[in-house]
């Protein structure tokens, strides 16, 4: 590593001045925030976002010309970004690049941002070609982490993090072996109770029931897939599922175990046994306002910070103390980008406002509003609870096709950046 300078303080403010047009804003923001965390995980550095006024580190996207930067960019490819050394604080990205997240296409914003922040914090280029601080972009890595040379460099500037904490969950303990499950019948999305709902990567909403999962959008629902065909190693009949845009992690809960995935890849070492929260959770969701994961069971909830030690002895707290008007023991819960939280139970769902109070007019029908199910007609339904032949045929065809291990789950589900809802 090479050292170019250092900040005279360890608490730094940052401001995101604009975002790329190629990513949803919440995805781009999450990528940038994660980039800071790579460095704060291994040093005593702390970062605080400000929305207005001056900030120590300022991130922005500009094109070939900029009124505020003398270093022009060169269009797609070649130069991707640049940054100033301490204590200047400018971090600039080429807005002409195809900035992406969670895919091998384009340029990964999170990794490039982490690299440029390395410069802003005082690191020069590393001669280790596999280090984050290598000058050439090495491409997207699903399990990206800092190279030992990156860690050694930044710790040479700011010291080690004290106390040294692992970037792992506090609530998990020993590794357990995956338990195989027997396949259950294909569920009817228009009837029955959901096991779990999740607003996943790419802004897709997933519904889980039995051994199957499908996506739901404003315009309709997608075909059913075996859960294990998309998330290899994951059983069906889940208790809860939650995706954290903060860490890009997906957590699945069943019984006393938790599975962690990044996109469709299980993180090594999982599943693990839940240690400090109750087994058999009812529901889980991520609340964007405080960046915490909420875990619900019975009449209580746990609030979990993925990246900081949590005093779980304070939990469970009564659900009624925080959520007003919700049903007890929901079967699923999910939050949207706008901060609204949805609770699901039986055939109904409840929408909560930002004050976590159930809004007027709820509960409403899950089948009608979420699953786009319409009143049954003789042409559409053979008998109660059985979907039409064409729908079933399409579903079966798709379900069989995803057993082909050569198929990519992103492609099958239309999660490539070209797909739009």
């Amino acid at each position, binding site marked *: 590593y*090479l050292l170019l300078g250092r900040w005279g303080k360890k608490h730094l403010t940052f401001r995101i001045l604009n975002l790329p047009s190629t990513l949803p804003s919440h995805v781009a923001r999450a990528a940038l925030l994660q980039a800071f965390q790579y460095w704060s995980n291994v040093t005593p550095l702390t970062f605080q976002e400000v929305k207005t006024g001056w900030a120590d580190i300022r991130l922005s996207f500009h094109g070939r010309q900029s009124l505020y930067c003398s*270093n022009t*960019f060169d269009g797609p*490819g*070649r*130069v*991707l*970004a*640049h*940054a100033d050394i301490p204590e200047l604080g400018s971090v600039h990205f080429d807005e002409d*690049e195809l900035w992406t997240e969670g895919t091998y296409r384009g*340029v990964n914003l999170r990794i*490039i941002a982490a*690299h*440029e922040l390395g*410069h802003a914090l005082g690191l*020069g*280029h590393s*001669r280790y*070609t596999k280090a984050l601080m290598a*000058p*050439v*972009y090495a491409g997207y890595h699903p399990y990206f982490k800092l190279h030992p040379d990156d860690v050694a460099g930044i710790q040479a500037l700011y010291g080690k993090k004290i106390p040294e904490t692992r970037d792992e969950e506090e609530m998990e303990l020993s590794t357990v072996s995956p338990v195989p499950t027997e396949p259950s019948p294909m569920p009817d999305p228009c009837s029955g109770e959901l096991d779990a709902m999740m607003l996943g990567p790419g802004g897709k909403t997933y519904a889980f029931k039995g051994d199957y999962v499908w996506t739901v959008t404003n315009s309709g629902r997608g075909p059913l897939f075996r859960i294990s065909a998309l998330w290899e190693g994951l059983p069906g009949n889940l208790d809860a599922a939650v995706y954290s845009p903060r860490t890009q992690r997906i957590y699945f809960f069943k019984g006393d175990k938790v599975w962690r995935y990044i996109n469709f890849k299980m993180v090594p070492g999982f599943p693990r046994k839940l240690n400090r929260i109750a087994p058999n959770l009812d529901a889980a969701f991520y609340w964007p306002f405080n960046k915490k994961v909420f875990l619900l069971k019975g009449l209580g909830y746990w609030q979990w910070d993925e990246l900081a030690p949590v005093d779980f002895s304070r939990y469970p707290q009564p659900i009624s103390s925080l959520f007003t008007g919700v049903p007890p023991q929901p079967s699923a819960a999910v939050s949207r980008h706008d901060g609204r939280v949805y609770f699901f139970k039986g055939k109904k769902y409840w929408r909560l406002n930002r004050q976590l109070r159930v809004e007027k007019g709820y509960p409403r029908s899950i089948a009608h509003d979420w699953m786009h199910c319409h009143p049954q007609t003789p042409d559409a339904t053979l008998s109660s609870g059985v979907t039409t032949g064409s729908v079933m045929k399409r579903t079966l065809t798709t379900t069989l096709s995803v057993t082909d291990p050569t198929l990519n789950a992103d492609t099958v589900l239309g999660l490539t950046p070209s797909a739009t809802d």
Partner: protein
Amino acid sequence: QALVPAEEAALEYLFQYGYLQKPLEGPHVFSPEDIMEALRAFQQASELPVSGWLDDATRARMRQPRCGLADPFNQKSLK
């Protein structure tokens, strides 16, 4: 003047990213020895075969997307 465009681009790359330093005095002309020395530093830093010649692997490496900051690599820093 005799450089083909690909070689010009390589020279520009070496200059832009700090492998070639313009002299403070005298003509801004790099000698073949300067260029070979810069290419060797670039190849060594890029974990490429070190020849001092602009071969295909070196050209390909120079086309890869990268950070806009200069590299600190020269024979002294690499040593």
